[in-house]
């Protein structure tokens, strides 16, 4: 009897301590990777800038009519790309992405559109497989460290689907659900409609006094657009993946920090309880000895 509850508390303290160590290690790992993720985002910025400038140049100088920018009236089918993480331990990060995706899916279904799911990251994949929901294609690539190749692969698969006619299983819209890295404490799940493209950002308005330069296109404006727009889509997807990776790591760091704090709280509580149990055991032993001695003396 004596020492029974003490042992239980000791064991709990020990296991909580080893958990705390793991949380702490995860927190530090996440913290060190955020820097790298941010650096990759920064490294991708020149490309983003160059391609956006080129697309807006074409948009300003020609009347663009390209399959990728053409609105399809009465669209019947839409693709949704869900960018989630491969691992949990990131607080509400995977859950909020899935929730946002579900909201979008319902909204599209209400508009009478069939939704095709494209999913990246094991968390979201297992969410859909567990519920027996069909996904068209899934990717797991190490969501903390997306590469340009993966972005191109995803872009290619989605563009193929988009360019196929609807009655042959193609889609008329592409939405991307990912997480926006606002800062270290705020990451917001958000939805963008990526296709048909709306080239609005950075279109240069013709100034009255300024004559816009006349662009030469090699070999032709159409061919240039053909080459530009798929790359533009790839770039946007890559940017979304990078942003999601930074968000995932920030969420993980925060979640693991909280877990470490909670483990410390638990250890403190258990230490108090163990002390109490020890004191109770001692008191009981003394009273047993005293009453035993009393019984012998009388």
């Amino acid at each position, binding site marked *: 009897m004596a020492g029974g509850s003490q042992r239980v508390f000791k064991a709990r303290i020990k296991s909580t301590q080893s958990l705390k160590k793991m949380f702490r290690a995860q927190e530090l790992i996440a913290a060190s990777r955020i820097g790298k993720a941010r650096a990759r985002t920064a490294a991708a910025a020149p490309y983003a800038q*160059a391609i956006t400038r080129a697309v807006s140049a*074409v948009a300003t100088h020609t009347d663009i009519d390209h399959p990728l920018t053409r609105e399809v009236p009465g669209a019947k089918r839409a693709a949704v790309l869900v960018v989630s993480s491969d691992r949990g331990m990131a607080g509400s990060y995977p859950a909020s992405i899935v929730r946002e995706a579900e909201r979008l899916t319902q909204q599209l279904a209400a508009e009478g559109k069939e939704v095709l799911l494209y999913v990246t990251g094991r968390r979201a994949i297992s969410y859909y497989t567990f519920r027996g929901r069909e996904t068209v294609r899934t990717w797991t690539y190490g969501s903390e460290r997306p590469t340009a190749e993966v972005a*191109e692969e995803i872009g290619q698969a989605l563009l193929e689907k988009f360019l196929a006619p609807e009655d042959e299983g193609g889609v008329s819209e592409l939405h991307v659900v990912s997480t926006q890295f606002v800062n270290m404490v705020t990451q917001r799940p958000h939805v963008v409609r990526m296709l048909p493209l709306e080239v609005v950002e950075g279109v240069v308005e013709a100034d009255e006094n300024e004559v816009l*330069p*006349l662009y030469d296109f*090699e*070999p032709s404006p159409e*061919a240039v657009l053909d*080459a*530009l727009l798929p790359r533009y889509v790839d770039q946007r997807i890559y940017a979304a993946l990078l942003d999601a990776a930074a968000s995932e790591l920030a969420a993980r760091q925060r979640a693991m920090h909280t877990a470490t704090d909670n483990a410390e709280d638990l250890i403190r509580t258990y230490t108090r309880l163990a002390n109490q149990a020890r004191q109770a055991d001692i008191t009981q032993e003394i009273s047993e000895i005293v009453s035993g001695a009393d019984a012998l003396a009388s």
Partner: protein
Amino acid sequence: MAELSVDLVSLDRKVWSGAATQVSAPSADGQIGILANHTPLLAVLRPGTIKVETASGPAVEAQVTGGFMSVDNNLVTLVVDEISLV
């Protein structure tokens, strides 16, 4: 003489950037040479070799698998898919 300011970028990084006197790139119709004060241009690139004659120092040469090039106001931006510097 006016100089070109050249940016050579791929999807995940900036490969090279600096001042140059001449840029030669494989456009759809054949190798195209860009000198300072070239008219604004947007060109699709085929697989081939990009050669940048730098203002100082040796020329930069690279193999690319495709991409596009924009020239505007002496600012040359080469956006390439896959690149290996020679």
